[in-house]
């Protein structure tokens, strides 16, 4: 072989190496980043799927003011303006002391109920160095029904009901998120027509993004053990619309209550008989601490 051939090879090598040097610098830096773990954000847009909670909590220092409405049922027809003559409301004030802990208080006009909840993120979905496939959030909710009941005259403790849920969700991809919600509802006081104090249910929820700011959501809870056999399972479908600091959720649901023990175990309307409430949740967040 003559030297000219070597030189050509060398020249080509030189060009190759020369080109690589630039690419390699970036590749080398990206290598440095491979040990990072990236948390999956915004599995759901809000802290609620529709009626029930999502795995999401707000970031530390954020207060969320949530107003929820459920109008009367659509089967009221034109006389009731398809339910708009009646409205149930829940006003809620919620706060995130840390990125994992979330607490809230609320008052529902339905049965004049006060409620409080604690939510804690046990596991967060992540990618990168530490891959976690799902997010898991614990929810415990306590409610006190203060509607006067002269027949039973329940004590303070008897007016209470609690719900515990393990919320498990996975953001399958940018546009699709799914959630499973094993739930246990316990009522301290039950009426004569009720068969037990406890209800067990499994909820299914999902969100599909249609665009950057609009998503459709759906939620269903199936009761495996009911407190009252006349009660039906809650179904809800809705649209999430977000604009800056607000998230609007518009929904159609057969549930009247907006707290877990209510919509899971006390839904008497039949979704397929047009006993559907139109409703909305509006959330406005305030950053209290930076």
């Amino acid at each position, binding site marked *: 072989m003559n030297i000219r051939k070597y030189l050509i090879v060398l020249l080509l090598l030189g060009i190759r190496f020369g080109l690589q040097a630039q690419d390699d610098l970036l590749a080398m830096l990206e290598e440095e980043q491979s040990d990072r773990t990236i948390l999956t954000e915004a599995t759901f847009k809000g802290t609620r799927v529709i009626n029930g909670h999502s795995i999401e909590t707000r970031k530390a220092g954020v207060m969320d003011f949530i107003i929820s409405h459920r109008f009367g049922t659509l089967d009221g027809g034109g006389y009731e303006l398809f339910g708009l003559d009646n409205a149930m409301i829940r006003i809620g004030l919620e706060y995130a002391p840390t990125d994992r802990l979330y607490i809230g208080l609320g008052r529902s006009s339905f049965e004049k109920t006060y409620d409080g909840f604690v939510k804690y993120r046990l596991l967060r979905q992540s990618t990168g160095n530490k891959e976690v496939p799902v997010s898991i959030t614990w929810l415990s909710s306590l409610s006190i029904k203060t509607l006067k009941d002269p027949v039973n005259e329940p004590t303070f403790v008897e007016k209470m009901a609690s719900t515990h849920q393990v919320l498990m969700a996975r953001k399958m991809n940018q546009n699709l998120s799914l959630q499973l919600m094993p739930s246990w509802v316990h009522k301290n006081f039950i009426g004569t027509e009720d068969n037990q104090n406890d209800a067990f249910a499994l909820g299914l929820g999902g969100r599909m993004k249609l665009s950057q700011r609009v998503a459709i959501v759906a939620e269903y809870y199936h009761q495996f053990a009911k407190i009252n056999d006349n009660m039906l399972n809650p179904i809800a479908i809705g649209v999430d619309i977000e604009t800056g600091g607000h998230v609007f959720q518009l929904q159609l649901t057969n549930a009247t209550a907006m707290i877990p023990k209510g919509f899971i175990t006390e839904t008497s309307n039949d979704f397929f008989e047009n006993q559907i409430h139109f409703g909305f949740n509006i959330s406005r*967040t305030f950053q209290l601490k930076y």
Partner: protein
Amino acid sequence: MKHSMIFMLMLLYVVSVNAQDVLIDKGGVAHFYSEAPVENIEATNEKAIGAYNPKDGSVAVTMFMKDFHFEKSLMEEHFNENYIESDKYPKATFKGKLDSKGLDLSKPGTYMQTVGGELTIHGITKKLRTEVEFVVSKEEVQVNTLFKVALEDHDIEIPKIVIMNIAEVVDVDAHFNFSLK
């Protein structure tokens, strides 16, 4: 045999150029500022990684978009979820080369240099030329730059409803500190 030796030596030389000491800063700062009629938005990333290879003048920067932190956490979520799509395009990167001569890391002083290269944001790569200031001291090299990024260039959509809240062109500045010790 003699030819092979020459070949090996030259190859060694080529390889050794690549293995030269590269300056790296893993705690670089990237910051952007959007000035709009309704609100000004800014965010800072303090985990940008930057590198400069004095041998060939090549420069590289990479950072995770999720490391940009905003004053309001909801803004941060919107930035990642609606504008930058961080799940799909997790990083912003730059690779380029110093165009101008004269930078001498052994002589303390301030050098203005031009860097040309490719900026990748939101999965879209665009050419970028920017002035870069190198402040060289005995212990370190401080590198500062300032440039503008048009959101449209990188296919970052601004919905009409927030057109008054977000600038169409944002000011970006970046700072790195390379230790010479």
